[in-house]
């Protein structure tokens, strides 16, 4: 078979040139549009997110049936990790941070490898799934006061609050996510949901810093049974609770390093946590 290749080559090269020019024009157009372009975000969404969150953003992607916990339903505009008060929409930065950070121990990975521009575009596109974004403003981020000093006293107070606020009912006395109420918990879509198990990881779903943990107490995790404690906890109390929760994690945090020797020496003096706690803790 003898190939008459010259006309074919000319045609193919010309086509390739046209595609190249077209690509450059598209890129220039994208540059002009600036950040948070939902159209560009749709492309990134279809490439990366659609398998779990679905084409309609309702968390019913083809892979959702195999995933626990279930993917976020963007049509509800309910987001766990926010800097804004409970019941309000998150800021764009909150959503971008969630995309960037991912959710530890879930199927949602960190999308930090995407460019910042792409992540912003994704945020813009995700916001098209719910009309709430066009009718309501995002909430105002809460103010996080300066962290109180980390010491044994603060950890002990946090331990008391863990008992008093009945955190153990869901998270379990040792923070293993196995409290007496854990098995009955459901999310806003009546799907079973497990409380966070502090012993399994070194990061929290909404961040890894103490400030991130503080924020969770004060904003709650909307769409989950984790409420906001902004009306129950004073800032110093919240920091105490943060310091105690850090001791439940496997990481060698400053809190854990402080607490370990104290706990070994005073374990018998510490009241138990949970339903069996009968006596007030030592001060």
């Amino acid at each position: 078979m003898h190939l008459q290749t010259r006309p074919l080559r000319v045609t193919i090269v010309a086509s390739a040139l046209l595609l190249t020019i077209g690509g450059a024009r598209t890129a220039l157009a994208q540059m002009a549009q600036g950040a948070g372009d939902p159209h560009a975000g749709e492309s990134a969404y279809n490439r990366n997110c659609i398998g779990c969150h679905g084409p309609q953003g309702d968390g019913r992607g083809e892979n959702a049936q195999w995933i626990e916990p279930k993917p976020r339903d963007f049509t509800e505009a309910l987001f766990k990790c926010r800097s804004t008060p409970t019941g309000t929409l998150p800021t764009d930065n909150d959503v971008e941070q969630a995309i960037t950070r991912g959710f530890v121990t879930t199927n949602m990975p960190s999308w930090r490898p995407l460019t910042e521009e792409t992540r912003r575009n994704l945020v813009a596109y995700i916001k098209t799934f719910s009309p709430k974004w066009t009718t309501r403003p995002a909430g105002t981020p809460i103010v996080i006061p300066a962290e109180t000093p980390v010491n044994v006293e603060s950890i002990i107070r946090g331990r008391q609050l863990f008992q008093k606020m009945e955190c153990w009912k869901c998270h379990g006395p040792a923070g293993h996510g196995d409290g007496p109420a854990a098995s009955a918990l459901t999310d806003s879509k009546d799907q079973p949901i497990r409380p966070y198990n502090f012993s399994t990881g070194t990061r929290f779903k909404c961040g890894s810093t103490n400030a991130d943990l503080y924020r969770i107490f004060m904003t709650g995790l909307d769409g989950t049974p984790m409420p906001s404690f902004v009306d129950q906890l004073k800032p110093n109390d919240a920091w105490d609770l943060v310091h105690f929760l850090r001791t439940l994690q496997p990481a060698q945090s400053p809190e854990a390093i402080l607490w370990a020797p104290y706990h070994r020496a005073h374990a018998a003096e510490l009241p138990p946590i949970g339903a069996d706690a009968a006596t007030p803790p030592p001060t």
Partner: protein
Amino acid sequence: MTGWSRRKFAPVQMSFGALCALSLLVGASTRATAMTGVGGANGSGIHGSDRDGRADTQPRALYAEFLRRYGGSSGFGNEKHFDGGTTLAVHSSSVIPAFARKYGLPCSACHTSWPQLNNFGQVFRDNGYRLMNERDSPIDHAPGYWPIAARITPHFRVDRTTNQPVDAVPGDPTSGFAERAITQTGFDLSGLDLLMIGTLSNNISFGLIPSSDNQGSFHLEAAYVRFNDLLSSNWANLKVGKFELDNIVSEKRELLLSGNGGFYQSYHFVPAGVLVASPDPTLPASPVPDGTSFGLGDNQLGAEFSGHSVNSYTRFSVGLFSSTDGEVGLQQGSGFDAAVALSQAFEAGSLGLERIGVFGYRGNRPTTFATLNGQPVPGTWDGNKSFYRAGVAGDLYLGNLELLPLYMRASDDVALATAGGGQPFPPQPVPVGARSPVWNAAFLEAHYFVSHQFVAMGRHEVIRVATQTLPEFPSDLGNVDATAVGFRWNPFMLSRTGLALHGEYAWTSTTGLPPLSGLGSGAPPNDLTTRVKSSSIFLALDFAF
């Protein structure tokens, strides 16, 4: 490349077993003439290896038989036509639906268009195939999960190569050579890649890739263990075994597949080494290749220390490899190569992520060996001579348009350059006036992603020999111009399997030498100034599951 990198570019002197076999097959009296007919390298034909082990008494046929059976050099570094007729350059590449199954992500999350990685996939790979979500260890997944995937590519192809020497009278090796174009047309099959890559524990990863040619003959394309995050730092990872070099532009993951387009000429080119007289006195002497057995795209055996930033924008690797081009057995003795790669990426707004980097490889190959009763003794190769490959490369985005530029400068020691003259046993002295060849290679590959399911692609590649091994060589001997265009369309994008409809047209022009594709007879033309043109039309169903 399936069944390709295993044997590809392994020069004659690199295979001890092959040498012994050759000497046994051919015998001392016929050995010299066995190599003179470079066209004899085509003896295996293009329709598949003759695996019945028959030996011919004719020198050219003996040489061909040797090449068939032991995977020696074809003369110019490409043995695909000895590989079961696998003129398709389909890769032993890592497109791994098993990962998609494990993590529930679609192929497009890690691949621009599979098997090429995007930066998310690069980070995943750099982390030892972990998403770092504290769900990476095998113990975190259902016992039924099995990290295995397979890839194969049924296809229709038309391959044509001009100026290929054939016997003037078919069946009569004494009739002299004539030249003709050789065309193959029809349905064919690629080799099969079995891809087993995953984690052994949270911080230890592994890779195992048995790969076959298209007749089902398997070899180990890759086998390694990787220790991730040594000292709890992503800047310290150690990989040991057989694996792909940390090339900034990966050949194992390239999108083009055809016989002429499915590999980077730059990664495998070696210039002409010496001239060998033709058995046909009416024809001029033929060039035979530089004998350096190395392919930048070939998997190597050794250890690699690497590191990367959290998002892999900064990456580095240094490697130490046995001087075997990935061949197992250490039959030639001791020798080590070194590789280094460094790249940096930066964000360019809506244009995307731009990566540039440098790479270098310095290797050694032996030139002498001890003998016993006139036969080479395993493990006694000595007299190492060096070669290098060094260059710059990039991965640049203009929105949906991706550009992969590469420039490389390369040189082989003159002793290596002249060692591949078809007469490695016993070693030949360096011809008077011979020089270390130097050449420049460059390509620009473009991918335009119409969507995450459709990509149009093209590449142009040039190789120019700056210093010929022999002064009498024409200055353009061995120069290469190669172009390829194509498309891949994924009709669906699941997190379980992948199917791509692939179309491609590629053509190559080489001066005085056969095309690296090995298409046609894989032999040089009768004249050093003849431009051999080779083209491929390739339509395929490329699928992985």
